[in-house]
């Protein structure tokens, strides 16, 4: 008992992030290789945002976590607009605007800063992530911005003007929120809200940690040993939410939550929630119905992977890599730790990181934002990872000591990935401290583009220029109310293949993504059918559809 209490917090102070396992500069440039898949056009297209972590002299943990990003169509014009979440200053006086920026997509490939007057510019607090969804079923996309302290729910008037309805809605939450996702957990046709929280942190209790060279640096979450529980707000259907976190069972487990994705992992028709935790075992909240959840990551095989200890989970995505009709999970981790690729085998997940080819290539960098999407439209899921360190290392890639290149993997036959050269898919490789990455087709040309938010730097807007892209289909899937049918599952019959895709905006890290379902078709010029399993349990079949177009399908209107 004596040791039990006294040493608990003593020992936390001296833990630090593991030392570099990567040899840095020698890896600065990718092996000379093929053509670029992406071109950074942020500045050229009018996105002038620069992220500010607020770092001055002291190292405060929130400063290293980055700010969020969102692709969403705020004005219903069919073009994805952009939100970039500003961090600000941890010690800023209450009420100081954080400086989030909102950019309207003009539809000609350029963006204009419409932050002023949108209701976005006035938002205060140290910002973290973004979630998007039409919580009030009025046909436009609303916003939720997470941060330190209170989060903010912004109701869209349909024209890109947002009203802060946090107080009346009851969705402020508390603590340090990170990624969030709108998800209809009870299939009542109204989007509920799940919010991951990182740890019980407070400015006055910030610790001092040291790099291997003995200089002051950011701490690891392990230094605080203060994991916390996540939040779940149930939509009451009248503009208000009820915090049902405890009642739903979320208080029964704590972790350092950074990433979240909703997915029906066991095929029972209910959306479950996977949370990537940083340095603590991941959580898999199995939806028991009646707004109750049970944490079952350990028995499901996703709490830790085959390396045997909890990794530093950051971003997360799900996709059906092996076309077996269920979604597999991929989790980003710290350098020296490989990605965790969990293959869904029905009753449980199996660690398949090696067999998909990610064991070696992934562990050289610290990965945050992520997506399993088909960037070259060849019908196979590719993989993008946005990278940047969280601790100082002796070897650096640029003047920013935390900066690293990002990674792009091409999906190849056999359900494997191969790292694409040039590194990260751009020439030259972009070296930054990348954090959030949002994914969507900003120019409606059938190629998935990427918005990468970089710490203390400008973002990258990566336009997809992958050579020889295949045919494609982009599906906007709406429920009866006209809202993006987040949580709906699509079975797409194309040629000899049956592809599984899902409607979701919440994945990656601190990001909200294009809700439209993108399907790469390779040489196929037609999709025979799209069968949608709606969250209410009904199914409908749509199609056929010719390729290379954007199609809207709506529940009840075949």
């Amino acid at each position, binding site marked *: 008992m004596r040791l039990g209490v006294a040493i608990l917090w003593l020992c936390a102070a001296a833990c630090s992030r593991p030392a570099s396992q990567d040899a840095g500069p*020698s890896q600065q440039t990718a092996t000379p290789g093929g053509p670029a898949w992406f071109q950074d056009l942020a500045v050229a297209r009018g996105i002038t945002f620069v992220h500010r972590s607020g770092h001055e002299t002291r190292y405060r943990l929130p400063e290293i976590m980055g700010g969020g990003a969102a692709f969403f169509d705020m004005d219903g014009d069919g073009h994805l607009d952009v939100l970039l979440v500003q961090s600000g200053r941890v010690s800023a006086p209450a009420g100081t605007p954080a400086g989030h920026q909102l950019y309207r997509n003009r539809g000609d490939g350029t963006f204009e800063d419409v932050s002023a007057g949108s209701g976005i510019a006035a938002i205060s607090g140290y910002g973290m992530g973004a979630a998007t969804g039409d919580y009030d079923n009025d046909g436009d996309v609303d916003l939720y911005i997470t941060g330190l302290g209170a989060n903010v729910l912004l109701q869209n008037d349909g024209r890109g003007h947002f009203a802060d309805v946090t107080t009346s809605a009851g969705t402020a939450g508390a603590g340090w929120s990170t990624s969030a996702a709108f998800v209809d957990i009870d299939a009542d046709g109204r989007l509920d809200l799940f919010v991951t929280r990182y740890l019980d942190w407070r400015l006055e209790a910030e610790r001092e940690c040291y790099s291997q060279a003995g200089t002051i640096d950011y701490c690891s979450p392990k230094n605080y040993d203060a994991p916390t529980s996540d939040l779940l707000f149930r939509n009451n259907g009248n503009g208000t939410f009820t915090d049902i976190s405890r009642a739903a069972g979320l208080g029964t487990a704590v972790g350092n939550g950074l990433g979240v994705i909703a997915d029906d992992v066991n095929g029972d028709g209910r959306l479950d929630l996977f949370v990537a935790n940083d340095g603590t075992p991941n959580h898999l909240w199995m939806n028991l119905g009646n707004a109750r959840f049970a944490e079952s990551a350990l028995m499901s095989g996703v709490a830790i992977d085959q390396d045997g200890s909890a990794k530093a989970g950051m971003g997360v995505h799900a996709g059906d890599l092996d076309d077996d009709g269920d979604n597999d999970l991929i989790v980003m981790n710290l350098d020296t730790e490989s990605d965790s690729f969990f293959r869904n085998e029905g009753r449980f997940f199996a660690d398949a990181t090696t067999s998909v080819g990610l064991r070696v290539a992934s562990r050289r960098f610290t990965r945050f934002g992520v997506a399993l999407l088909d960037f070259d439209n060849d019908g196979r899921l590719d993989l993008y990872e946005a990278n940047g360190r969280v601790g100082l290392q002796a070897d650096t890639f640029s003047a920013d000591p935390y900066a690293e290149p990002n990674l792009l993997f091409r999906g190849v036959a056999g359900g494997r990935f191969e790292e694409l050269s040039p590194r990260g898919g751009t020439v030259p490789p972009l070296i930054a401290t990348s954090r959030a990455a949002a994914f969507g087709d900003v120019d409606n040309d059938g190629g998935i583009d990427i918005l990468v938010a970089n710490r203390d730097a400008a973002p990258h807007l990566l336009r997809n220029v992958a050579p020889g892209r295949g045919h494609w289909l982009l599906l906007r899937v709406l429920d009866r109310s006209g809202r993006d049918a987040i949580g709906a599952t699509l079975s797409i019959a194309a040629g000899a293949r049956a592809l599984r895709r899902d409607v979701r905006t919440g994945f990656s890290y601190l990001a909200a993504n294009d809700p439209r379902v993108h399907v790469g078709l390779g040489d196929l010029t037609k999709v025979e059918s799209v069968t949608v399993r709606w969250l209410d349990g009904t199914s409908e079949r749509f199609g056929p559809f010719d390729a290379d177009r954007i199609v809207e399908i709506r529940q009840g209107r075949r």
Partner: protein
Amino acid sequence: MRAQPILGTVIVLTVLSAGCSRGPAPADPGTFGDLDPAVATLLNELTAAVNADRLDAARWGRLGMALEANGLLVPAAANYEIAVGLDEQEPRWRYRRALLRARRGELDAALGDLERVIALAPGYVPARWRQGLWLLDRGDTAGAQAAFQVAVQASPRDPAGHIGTALVHLSKREDAAAAAALEELLAASPGDRYALQLLGTAYRRLGREDDARYALTIGSTGQPVWTDPWSDELAPYRRGFAVMLKEATQLGLERKFDQAIALLTQLVKLRPGDKALQVYLGGMYAAAGRVAEAAAILDPVLAADPAHFDATMHLASGYLFTGNLDRAATYAVRALALRPANADAAKLQGMVHWQQGRLGEAETLFEAAAAADPRDPMPHLWMGMILGQQARYLDARRRFEMALAKNPLLGDALLGVADTFAATGAFAQAERALQRAEQAEPANPRLPAARERIMAAARANR
């Protein structure tokens, strides 16, 4: 007339050859950026040693190890490169180069190095299991299996080869074979939690849900341990503030408080203005039961900053452990007021109340601590003990079982279960719980008394 040019050529050649015999110069540590002074000193010494004889591979290798140990991996790799070139028969430098190459993702080159290492030092088992792991990383299960097999044959008592073999089986979906290999390993090394975790994975795939749950719950709390003496040789080269701080922490965890305090005292002298470090030292004194010395450090901190949570907690625990319950209570109350949702603060104040005999208040605080940190079995254990003291045996057992759900090897909870069964006359179940406690934590000092107590109760019952 021709003598002069010839002489000049000879001189140039002589100078050049002398230069070549000195070999390339090592990098100047001053170019490595912001180094901890202790690291810089070590690197300067070893660099000077290399400069004294640039053809000595061992000097290059040692400098490489010092660089690697302190996170300077790029120059370390360069040094190993030279060391390998100078002495192709020494496997260590090639081994270190292989590890750095593997870290950079250059697995083919790393495996090439490892093959040569194995040829030079066939008895060095870590080279075999590393080869197995890297081949497995590359998806070569047959090669990996062969490498692990050699490791098992060479060193049957080292778990690495067995673990590797099980990993191969798991990757090939030979779950029964994996389970068999792991069960065999665990029969010899029952405390290997990584093996238990892998076994849990195999059981789960085999549909043995209850066995899987038990194995995974225990196994997920352990770290894999791979023994590699050549890599352990890096440890003496690790220098600097952060390393010393980690070492002090480890000593504290091992309850070697005097050594930890000595190390921290050195660090405080190095950084006299570092308040966090002073508080840390004060906490170590408190943990050592040297509360007067703790107070001498922590009281001034609290005088300047009464809301300093860590300092408050350290003093509360120091006074608690030295039996000064009044003072402990003062600081514990303050700590909980500073952070009402903090599980440790709740536990500490609960502990004070418990020792003061205020069982109801202690129970309430332990309940709050359990809610604040659902990972922690201890509040449940303590609540079980309190309930046991109150002869509420069924409630107590429920608490012990809640603690065991979080840590199935918690010996005191198993003893609690045994005691509660014995108290209700269920001696067979008490005996089973006692046996589990003996298996889980054979060194638990409370075991003999518990056995004696339960046997006495059983005799009295007859």
